[in-house]
């Protein structure tokens, strides 16, 4: 036990302390918890720790090996950077939600069995939903509900898969599946993972919810959800060729939308889809080199994508909008945000000397050497789109583009710049000292990034992409529009289902009213009132008007008398647990 202290402990304890401590004291604690987490990750030795018996089942909470360590390493660093960025936030519930969310991410990373994984997986879903809701705006409330529904779907796929798998194999062990003999339950589990990895067309929640999250919440969310999903895909589904193809499609799909979107944070969100595509493709190709590439890219990506979200978040915080069509010419008034954003932008674009160069080229070269030429070419094309959209278009129209429209700017707290500085310096450090990152990777590294050819090839690709932007700069002007995505399909499905379900639900509601009127279930009703009171007071205490907002939206969305989305969600969770219990005792 001395060699392993589970990092989730620090964050759960921190969440409790922030909740209980009076006044503003609590917000200084999360960076301390993150620093302790970094220390515990650095002190870890490979092995298996913290096994606990529960209901006759052995739950493994502490599998430490090269693969879990590299993810835990960057999770801990990004937690520290994120909490420094969020130091000025006075709303304690945002800190509590972020702490629980990160605790969930560490729990998934060290989980040895599917039951443990599932528990922490759901913790992440719930906590991250609050990072959206706590922005306390009607659009955030609605986006948060859609986000949560999507993650319930992913969680249920995972749950169904792991239960079927247990029935067939008698084990919950979280181990690699065989690509040559994939069973139905493997596919279900993989689909559950793919929801969180934002594999198209299951990605719709990401560009929908991230732009609506709090300024600091989006920084956390950009780091943990999709990368935890990449980790579990690496653990279980390395070498599944379909992931190689889907990943490459993701890289291109994401940059197409990033090129036309107007909201800076939505551009970055679409670009997560693209970047996670490189990692998913690395998992799918499945050679030692592409697995390394996926891990290295996840590590580098968490740092620079967090920094990009910090830069765009600073725009939103200072100017009150992240819409490029309303911004422009801000380089004189927000020079530091511009500088650190550009460090992240050249990192993500894969400029030599910055972190993306030492990780992205590894995945692409690995795919090419494994004779997946089309995948490699697709990823090179997406690299062009990356620089075009996130590297040039976004900063050009936010910081240059046109004369400063003279928006009144809110002063930016210094801690936000400190966090950006740390992230920016790390992006540069990894770019010039790739050995630091390569030593952490699960397989021995046989790849030298700094050869004359690699440097020249990247320079040619990026330089001429820049020329392409120069020629198109009047065509690419951002427009105050939104763009349809698979999101539209899901919303339409939702509407059709609600329209179909409306009549039967109303009928059941009528029968039920009739039934308890006749049976006189007064006692039961009192209990129900009590729980409703608790729900209203407790939940509203947490998010002020948000719970009421949720109910209002729920009512509008369902259009039925009893349409309280929260109650349905609670009922769904209870039902899920009941199904689990029945299967458990029957099996």
């Amino acid at each position, binding site marked *: 036990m001395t060699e392993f202290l589970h990092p989730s402990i620090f964050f759960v304890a921190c969440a409790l302390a922030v909740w209980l401590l009076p006044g503003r004291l609590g917000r200084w604690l999360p960076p301390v918890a993150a620093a302790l987490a970094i220390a515990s990750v650095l002190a870890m030795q490979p092995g298996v720790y913290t096994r606990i018996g529960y209901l006759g089942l052995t739950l493994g909470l502490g599998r430490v090996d090269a693969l879990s360590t590299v993810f835990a390493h960057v999770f801990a660093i990004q937690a520290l950077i994120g909490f420094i960025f969020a130091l000025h936030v006075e709303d304690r519930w945002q800190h509590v939600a972020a702490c629980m969310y990160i605790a969930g991410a560490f729990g998934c990373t060290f989980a040895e069995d599917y039951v443990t994984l599932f528990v922490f997986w759901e913790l992440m879903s719930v906590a991250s939903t609050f990072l959206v809701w706590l922005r306390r705006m009607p659009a955030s409330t*609605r986006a948060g509900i859609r986000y949560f529904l999507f993650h319930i779907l992913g969680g249920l796929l995972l749950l169904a898969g792991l239960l079927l798998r247990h029935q067939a194999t008698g084990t919950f062990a979280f181990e690699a599946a065989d690509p040559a003999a994939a069973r139905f339950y493997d596919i279900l589990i993989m689909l559950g993972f793919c929801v969180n990895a934002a594999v198209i067309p299951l990605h719709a929640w990401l560009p929908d919810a991230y732009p609506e999250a709090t300024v600091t919440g989006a920084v956390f969310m950009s780091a943990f959800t999709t990368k935890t999903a990449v980790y579990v895909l690496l653990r279980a589904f390395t070498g599944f060729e379909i992931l190689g193809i889907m990943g490459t499609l993701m890289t291109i799909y994401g*940059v*197409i*939308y990033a*090129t*036309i979107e107007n909201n800076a944070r939505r551009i970055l969100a679409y670009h997560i889809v693209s970047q996670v595509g490189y990692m998913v493709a690395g998992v799918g190709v499945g050679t030692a080199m592409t697995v390394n590439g996926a891990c290295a890219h996840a590590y580098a990506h968490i740092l620079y994508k967090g920094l990009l979200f910090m830069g765009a978040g600073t725009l939103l915080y200072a100017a009150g909008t992240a819409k490029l069509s309303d911004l422009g010419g801000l380089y004189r008034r927000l020079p530091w945000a511009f500088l650190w954003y550009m460090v992240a932008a050249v990192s993500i674009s894969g400029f030599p000397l910055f972190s993306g160069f030492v990780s992205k080229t590894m995945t692409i070269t690995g795919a*090419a*050497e494994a*004779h997946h*030429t089309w995948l*490699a*070419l697709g990823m*090179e*094309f997406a690299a*062009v*789109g990356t620089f*075009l959209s996130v590297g040039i278009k976004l900063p050009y129209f936010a910081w240059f583009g046109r004369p400063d429209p003279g928006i009144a700017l809110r002063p930016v707290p210094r801690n936000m710049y400190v966090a950006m500085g740390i992230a920016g310096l790390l992006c540069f450090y990894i770019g010039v000292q790739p050995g630091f990152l390569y030593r952490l990777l699960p397989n021995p590294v046989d790849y030298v990034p700094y*050869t*004359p*050819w690699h440097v*020249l*090839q990247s*320079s*040619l*690709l*990026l*330089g*001429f*992409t*820049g*020329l*392409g*932007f*120069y*020629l*198109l*700069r*009047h*065509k*690419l*002007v951002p*427009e*105050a*529009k*939104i*763009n*349809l*995505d698979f999101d539209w399909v899901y*919303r339409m499905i939702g*509407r059709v289902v*609600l*329209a179909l379900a409306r009549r039967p639900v109303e009928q059941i509601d009528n029968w039920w009213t009739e039934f308890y009127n006749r049976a006189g279930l007064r006692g039961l009703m009192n209990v129900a009132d009590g729980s409703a009171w608790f729900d209203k007071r407790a939940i509203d205490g947490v998010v002020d008007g948000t719970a009421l907002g949720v109910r209002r939206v729920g009512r*509008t*969305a369902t*259009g039925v008398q009893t349409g309280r989305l929260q109650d349905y969600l609670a009922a769904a969770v209870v039902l899920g647990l009941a199904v689990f219990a029945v299967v458990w005792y029957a099996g």
Partner: protein
Amino acid sequence: MGQHPTPPSALLSAPARKLRNLMFAALALLVLLNLFIHPHEPHFGLDAYAGFWAVFGLVGAVVLGRAAKGLAHTVLGKNEDFYEKGTEDSMHAAPAEQKPPHHH
């Protein structure tokens, strides 16, 4: 879009023009270097030729920019209140279809 009475280059100040020309020179230099520095092992025929990645980057950027904007101007682009309209209107009527935005 693109209705500029004067050609864009004429709007550039003297230092900006200088910077632009410097950039063009750097791009030319990169292609020149490509004549002497070759790939470790070409993975498909064309990438053995000097300038392949220059053409790939330029054509890729232009094709992507044109295609993406084309999609936005035809099927994908909607007004910002597109979804809000759908929820506040009657739930049973299909949301009013928006006309594709005009840009010319």
